[in-house]
């Protein structure tokens, strides 16, 4: 329609201009759908988001329950370690987010989108929203398996909703980090190698696997300021009760900081790439 009209008169009429005015909401949803479709069709992404945290929950519980707490049961350790494995599934999935973002830059899809009358923010924001949907799948899969192993909620419905939402909010911060890395990376491989080791350190040097007093002295302060520790503690409190305010506030602060810093960095790098 629009093209035929444009060929008849070189200057677009008011009507066509209004017709192609981008809708931020609609465009973002379309782009979120795009990133979810790509994720669904990428075996590595499916594995990282579902199989990896699930097998880690099973094997860590089976192998380490009696070592970490000899008096506790396997179910006790499943209750203890589950939040960390949810976060590991989400953080390591963000690597795949970065790789997908990098592929869109390399393949020219991103450039093509920029020539279309869509909201400027839609490709990036849509990716982050599509990610959140994938991350929700991770939380649901891990919790479902956890319940089979003896994981239980004994808090109010609001706390349980918070338990499901918090990892998504923090996951968005990590997704921005991955997209910012991807925008600068030369190859998809280097996206992975830049993020992998750092995310491993964050996952391990936290209070996720063992209590803080079981870590060596030098690692305890690191675990204390580690955002993963805050999220894990907040999730434990949201599932089993206990002081929730402190870790919750620091998790949200971390998520806001990651989103702001890497969101700005990502948008800037994208703009610079586009102006080249």
């Amino acid at each position, binding site marked *: 329609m629009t093209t035929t009209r444009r060929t008849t008169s070189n200057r677009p009429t008011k009507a066509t201009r209004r017709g192609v005015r981008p809708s931020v909401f609609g465009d973002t949803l379309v782009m979120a759908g795009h990133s979810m479709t790509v994720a669904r069709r*990428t*075996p*590595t992404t*499916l*594995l990282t988001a579902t*199989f*990896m945290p699930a*097998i*880690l929950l099973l*094997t*860590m519980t*089976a*192998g*380490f*329950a*009696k*070592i*970490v707490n*000899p008096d506790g049961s*396997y179910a006790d350790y499943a209750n203890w370690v589950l939040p960390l494995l949810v976060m590991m599934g989400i953080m390591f999935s963000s690597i795949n987010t970065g790789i997908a973002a990098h592929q869109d830059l390399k393949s020219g899809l991103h450039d093509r989108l920029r020539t279309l009358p869509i909201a400027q923010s839609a490709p990036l924001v849509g990716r982050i929203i599509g990610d959140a949907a994938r991350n929700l799948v991770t939380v649901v899969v891990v919790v479902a398996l956890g319940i089979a192993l003896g994981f239980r909620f004994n808090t109010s419905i609001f706390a349980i909703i918070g338990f499901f939402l918090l990892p998504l909010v923090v996951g968005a911060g990590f997704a921005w980090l991955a997209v910012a890395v991807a925008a600068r990376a030369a*190859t998809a*491989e*280097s996206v*992975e*190698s830049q993020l*992998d*080791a750092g995310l*491993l*350190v964050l996952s*391990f*040097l936290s209070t996720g*696997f*063992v209590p803080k007093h*079981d*870590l*060596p002295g030098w*690692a305890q302060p690191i675990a204390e300021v580690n955002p993963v520790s805050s999220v894990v503690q907040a999730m434990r409190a949201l599932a089993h009760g206990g002081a929730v305010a402190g870790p919750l506030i620091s998790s949200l602060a971390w998520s806001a900081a990651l989103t702001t810093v890497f969101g700005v960095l990502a948008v800037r790098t994208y703009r610079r790439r586009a102006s080249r």
Partner: protein
Amino acid sequence: MTPGRVATAPTARPSLPLDSALLCGRHLRLMSRRPASLAEVIVLPLAFTLLFFTVFQRTMARVGIDYAQYLIPSVIVQAVFFTALSTAVHAAEDAQGGLLQRLRCLPVARAAPYAGLLLAEVVSVVISMAVLIPVGMVLGFRFEAGFLAATGFVGVACLFALTLCAGYLALGLAARRPEGASAFGVLIYFPLLLLSNAFTTTEAFPDWLEPVVQNQPITRVIDALRALSTEGADLVRPVLVAIVWLVPLLMLLGLFATRSFGRMR
């Protein structure tokens, strides 16, 4: 020299060792230029060593285990897995990119492309060990059983590397897509390594799982490596059990690799 003479000259007859060495060199050069190889061979094994040691050292000491001594054989086995996973990817890339097909119409020994790849992967495992063993020694790992046992340690690790890489090579050739090969490879890696006594003890597993953990090949290989680095350990049984696992597996997986290589179009 006329073209006809070159083709019939005795120098054009393929030599397996020479061609393998040449293609091994190609893979090593490629690996040295990709950041992912550096990550798989050095950075990730090192990160896992330091992180597992840091996080579980105190809890393992409580059950009476010197974790540095316990962990080094395990992280070497894990490093072999990382290398093997990349073998699948390299093989799939060569298959997809047409290099293997091209080599088949040249006067190159038939087995050389995959013998070369396997050789290169074993070299990268040796590099991993050359990094992990000194770091382990800083953490407290020792070859307590002497030089001969230490040589045996490296030998068993290399035999394991050869076996596992042959399996993943077959997987990579069968999958043909690097992405699929690596995804499928991870599906094998996680359960095999994590349901073993690599990072924890067999006794820590639930009773019904213990026999599985105890008797699977990865546990058997780690048992042999631990025996070869522990003073006064009974050597014969664990090493024999490991070899009895590895040699037939190597032959079987080598056969799979050869067959998927022959079946390629």
